[in-house]
C-alpha cells in the first residue's frame, strides 16, 4: 500500500525566491509527522505547498497514491487534506458556528459534525453564536482546529498551533491531538516547541534553510543531533 502523503523532490518558489529545495517527506495513514526547524526554514511553505497555496512548486505531491500537485486547493481539501493555518486565519465577523460550518462546506462528506467538535471543545458550544473576533486566542485556535476537523480530513496539517498561547491552554489543545489520532487521522505538526511535538510524533523531519537537515524516529536520535541540525552548526 502506498503512503497517504508523499512529497518527492518538492521545491517552492515565491517569484524568484527559492524557499524550499527538493525535499522528500512521507506520511503513512494514521501517522503523526513532526516538522521542525528554525524561523524561516520553510515549514509553513511546505504546508502551504501541500494545500496548494504557494505561487509555484516543482516536484511531486502524491496524496493517497494520486498526483495532486496540479490540483486546486478546493480539490485537495475535498479529497481529505485540511490545514490549521499559522495565525489561525478565522473569519472574524462570522460566528463560531459559521466558521465551523465553512469547514463542512469545503471538506469531504463524513461522520465528523458540529456535535463532535463541540464534544471535543465544549467551550465552543457555549459561544457558538459569538463572533470569532470576540474569542480569546486559545478559543480561536480551537475554532481553527474545529474548522479543519469539520472537513472530515484524512490528513490534518497543523501550523504552530501553540503560537502565542499560555502553557495551560497549549496543554489543553495538545490533549486533543491523541483523540484526533484515535479517529484514524494522520497529522503533520509544525511546532516551535520541539519536545512537545516530538513526544507525539512517529516520525520527524528537521528543516534548515529550505532543506531537510535530519529525519527519522524521535527515539533514534539524540538531543544534540537535533540541536545541530536545527541550528545548522
Amino acid at each position: 500500500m502506498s503512503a497517504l502523503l508523499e512529497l518527492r523532490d518538492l521545491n517552492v518558489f515565491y517569484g524568484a525566491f527559492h524557499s524550499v529545495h527538493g525535499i522528500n517527506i512521507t506520511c503513512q495513514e494514521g501517522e503523526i509527522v513532526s516538522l521542525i526547524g528554525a524561523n524561516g526554514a520553510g515549514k509553513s511553505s511546505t504546508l502551504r505547498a501541500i494545500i496548494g497555496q504557494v505561487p509555484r512548486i516543482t516536484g511531486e505531491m502524491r496524496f493517497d497514491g494520486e498526483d495532486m500537485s496540479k490540483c486546486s486547493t478546493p480539490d485537495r481539501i475535498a479529497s481529505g487534506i485540511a490545514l490549521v493555518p499559522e495565525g489561525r486565519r478565522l473569519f472574524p465577523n462570522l460566528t463560531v458556528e459559521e466558521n465551523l460550518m465553512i469547514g463542512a462546506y469545503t471538506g469531504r462528506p463524513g461522520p465528523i459534525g458540529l456535535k463532535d467538535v463541540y464534544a471535543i471543545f465544549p467551550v465552543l458550544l457555549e459561544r457558538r453564536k459569538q463572533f470569532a473576533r470576540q474569542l480569546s486566542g486559545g478559543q480561536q485556535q480551537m475554532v481553527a482546529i474545529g474548522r479543519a476537523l469539520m472537513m472530515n480530513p484524512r490528513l490534518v496539517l497543523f501550523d504552530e498551533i501553540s503560537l502565542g498561547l499560555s502553557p495551560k491552554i497549549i496543554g489543553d489543545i495538545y490533549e486533543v491531538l491523541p483523540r484526533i489520532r484515535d479517529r484514524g487521522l494522520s497529522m503533520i505538526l509544525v511546532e516551535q516547541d520541539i519536545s512537545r511535538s516530538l513526544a507525539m510524533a512517529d516520525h520527524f523531519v528537521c528543516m534548515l534553510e529550505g532543506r531537510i537537515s535530519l529525519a527519522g524516529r524521535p527515539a533514534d536520535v539524540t538531543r544534540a543531533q537535533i540541536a545541530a541540525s536545527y541550528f545548522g552548526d
Partner: protein
Amino acid sequence: MTGLLDQIIQASLLGGLYAIFALGLAISVGVLKFINVAHGDLIVAMSFLMLTLTESLGLPAPIAFALLIPIGAGMGWLLQYGLFQRAASQNELQIILITFGLSVILQNGLLGIYGADTRKVTAGGIELASLHLFGNINIGVLPLIIFATACVLIAGLEQLLYRTGLGVKIRAIADAPEAARLVGLKVAGLMAIAMALVGITEAVSGGLMSIWTNFDPSSGSSRLLIAFEVVVLAGLGSFWGVLVGGIIIALAQTFGGMVDSAYQVLAGHIVFLILFLARPQGLFPKT
C-alpha cells in the same frame, strides 16, 4: 397639511426605488470590496432593454420584467468572470479605473443605439392607477409595488446571506479573502455569484425605473451617485439601513424640490454631505 403628508408619503415610496438602486452597490462594496462606477449605467442599460422588450418585441411589461432578471444575473456573472476577476490581483484604484472605462462604454453604446432622447416605458395603465387612502391622499399603485419590492429584496438578501450556506460562504470571502482561499472556498466562483446577485438588483432597478421615471443614456451617473450616497448613509453591511438611507435622500430631494425644482438634486447631495460629516461610519454600521 395633508399636502405635506402626501409629499412625505410619495418621497418615502421613492426611497424604495433608491434603496433598490443601492442594494447592488452595497453587495459589491461589502463582498467584492469595490465600487462599480458603471452600476448606474448598468441599471440604465436594463431600462433600455426593458424598452426594447416591450416596444420593439411587444411583450407585456410584466413578462419583459421577468425576463430582465435572469439576464441581469447572467450579465453580473459574466462581468465578474470576464472582467473584474482578471483585475482582482490589482489594486482598488485599477479596478475603479476599469469600471470607469466600462461606464463610458455603456453610456456611449446606449447613446449610439438609442439616441439621446428621453424615454419611458408604458406598462398598460398600472403606472396611472392609484389607491385612495384618506382625505385627499392617494398612493400610486406602482410606487407601492416598488416599495414592496424593495422590502422583499432586502428581506430576501438578509435571508440568503445570513441563513444559507451560500450566504455564509459569501460573507466569509467578504470577511477574509486570504483565509477563504486557505480553507478551500472557491473564491472566484462565489464572487461571480455575488455579482450575479448585484446583476439581479440592477435588473429590478432598471425595470422598475423604466416604468416610473424618464431616463436617457446619460442617466446612469446620477443613479450611481444616489446609490453611493444611500450605501454610505446606511453604513457597511446594513440592508435595512439601505432602505432608511433611500428614504432620507428621497425626502431631501422632495423638500428641496418644493423650495425650487432646481434644488431637488442639490438638496439630496447636501443632506448627504452633512449627514456624512456628522456620521462618517454611516447610520447603521453592522461591524
